[in-house]
């Protein structure tokens, strides 16, 4: 692979991670959905770029799946759910922007320190994109922890899965089955999440999780 191709691949991987940071501090619901869609588009470009430079045509299929499902279908559906349920306000987070940024940056440092020494024998591109992918996964987890609303938790979960696809795309010659199944399961998961939103809404008149948690299964 040429140096330029290599640099572009890194740039794109970095962009996916950057969108994860944006998800961390974005407070408005519609903003969150747009950032998630942008992250998915970038992920699709990563896959397409990998397909082009590494002559792996099956990655084009992964790119197409990501664009259709995660950049179009899911964001559109989430917007629909929001208007149906009338949630336009900003969402609360358990952590302030500053501290969640610091936590995010330290998670990135952690994953770089974890992955780079371990994979010294692998191809250079794989090593670094794996480190960035793990950072995206961990940031997704952080977002799920810091947000107190069901919709934002789901967005965190899906951005976590974007990180997984980033890892799968970065590894040389990973069979397509995996990416397809990820895309598929995300779709199924999303349908189910959608049903949940309505169920929770029906029962609780709110999608905020602390409200949900007050109904402990085991009351004394």
């Amino acid at each position, binding site marked *: 692979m040429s140096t330029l191709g290599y640099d572009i691949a890194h740039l794109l991987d970095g962009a996916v991670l950057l969108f994860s940071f944006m998800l961390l501090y974005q407070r408005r619901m519609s903003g969150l959905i747009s950032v998630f869609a942008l992250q998915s588009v970038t992920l699709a470009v990563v896959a397409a770029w990998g397909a082009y430079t590494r002559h792996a045509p099956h990655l084009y299929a992964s790119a197409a799946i990501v664009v259709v499902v995660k950049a179009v279908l899911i964001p559109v559906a989430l917007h629909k759910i929001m208007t149906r349920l009338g949630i336009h306000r900003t969402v609360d987070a358990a952590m302030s922007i500053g501290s969640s940024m610091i936590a995010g940056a330290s998670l990135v440092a952690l994953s770089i320190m974890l992955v780079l020494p371990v994979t010294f024998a692998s191809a250079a591109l794989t090593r670094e994109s794996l480190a960035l992918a793990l950072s995206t996964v961990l940031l997704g987890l952080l977002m799920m922890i810091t947000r107190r609303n069901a919709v934002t938790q789901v967005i965190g979960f899906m951005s976590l899965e974007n990180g*997984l696809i980033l890892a799968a795309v970065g590894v040389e010659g990973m*069979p397509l089955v995996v990416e397809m199944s990820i895309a598929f399961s995300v779709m199924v*998961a999303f349908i189910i999440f959608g049903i*949940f939103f309505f169920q929770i809404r029906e029962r609780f008149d709110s999608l905020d999780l602390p409200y949900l948690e007050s109904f402990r299964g*085991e009351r004394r």
Partner: protein
Amino acid sequence: MTAVLLILILPVLASAVLALVGSYRVGAWINVAASVATFGASCALFVSPRLTTLLLFIDDFNIYLVVLTAFVGMTTSIFSATYIRHEMETGRLTPRNLRFYHAMYQAFIFTLLFGLVSNNLGFMWVAIEGATLTTALMVSLYRTHAAIEAAWKYFILCGVGIALALFGTILMYLAAQPVMGSGLGAMAWDGILPRVAEFDPTILNLAFVFLLVGYGTKVGLAPLHSWLPDAHAEGPTPISAVLSGLLLNVALYAVLRFKILLAANGNAIAPGPLMITMGLTSLTLASFMLYRRRDIKRLFAYSSIEHMGIITFAFGMGGPLANFAGLLHMTMHSLTKSAIFFTVGHIAQVKGTQTIAGIRGLTVTHPRLGWGLVMGVVAIAGLPPFGIFASEFLVITTTIARQPLLAVPLVLALLVGFGALVLRLQGLAFGVPRGAPGGKVEASLVPLYTHLALVLMAGLYLPPPLVVWFQNVAKLLG
């Protein structure tokens, strides 16, 4: 090979048909018939030649779990038929709920069997993710506050767990790819195993940590166990029975497959100590938590965490004897715990409550259910002559022989758990009946007593072929 395909196709077909059948009575019958057929097909695995492809394979290890899964799937479907009839009569479920429930039940059995027989590590992951999706929806079937909370928790925690497991699977492929070349061959378990010694051990280490934590969440190992009691307590009881009896086993099976890979590479970390730590922590935590339970289904859910802890501990110890004990305990726990949930399901129906305080003197008011519960709890608490006594005894003796210091917390935790179960059993089964006398329920006691009889038989006499077979699998597990 045809038998393998049959056990996969039957549940899928049944699920598709059940999604279309409106009548819940017909649905229940089709569910039972399909489960019986699947069990029959799984028995045919013993005689049909064992072919191995890149995607599916059968070996000594998974054949026994396939048969166990199909068997418990069958008995649970029989229990489920009587259970849901009562739920329909009391109006807790609607025919639409049940159509969905039956279709999902078969889909769930499919994902379990597919996970067990898949040779491809990626497909194994897909199957276990599928098991999460199908059961999450069944947990929220009652649409109560608590059920929705439980399903949400189950979804989020297991979703994250399964995501970490996928990351581990990708790392495993990364380790395999330089040696095995690109493509499906680098994900086929039986192809990887003979060459795993050439893999980069550092990547294997990293992969195993992710896999253990990821699949460990589904096994219900501490500290990621908190979804388990909620999911068991709030869903329909047949689902609690298959969650405890089957899903936890299949998740543990996935961990063990990777443990074998790691053990075959001399330079990678030893997976044993990690599993011992997680197992012992879960066991200790769960046995203390047993004391504070107010809900009967939660009580037994915590007991499942306790037993998965024992099994993980046994496999972590490794060696022929401990592995043998682990395999035996896996089987016995599956049978006993699902039997207990069968009784508990009917008890909750006759008493109209799940709280322990509301249930007293069962042996007086409902002798057949009451004594079934007594036998189940005696078995699960590890008393002779039941099979769990044999496996726990083996675990303890090997631990004393090899790691005497570890035996202290192990025996202590077991005794603590034992005390809690006996304490609760006294109130539930004996004493003066309290509360509503409780109506009659048409309970099918066949599944319950079949399971208990098998557990009793295993405690008194293990047939030699079974012993030889367990020994072979124990050798494979290293």
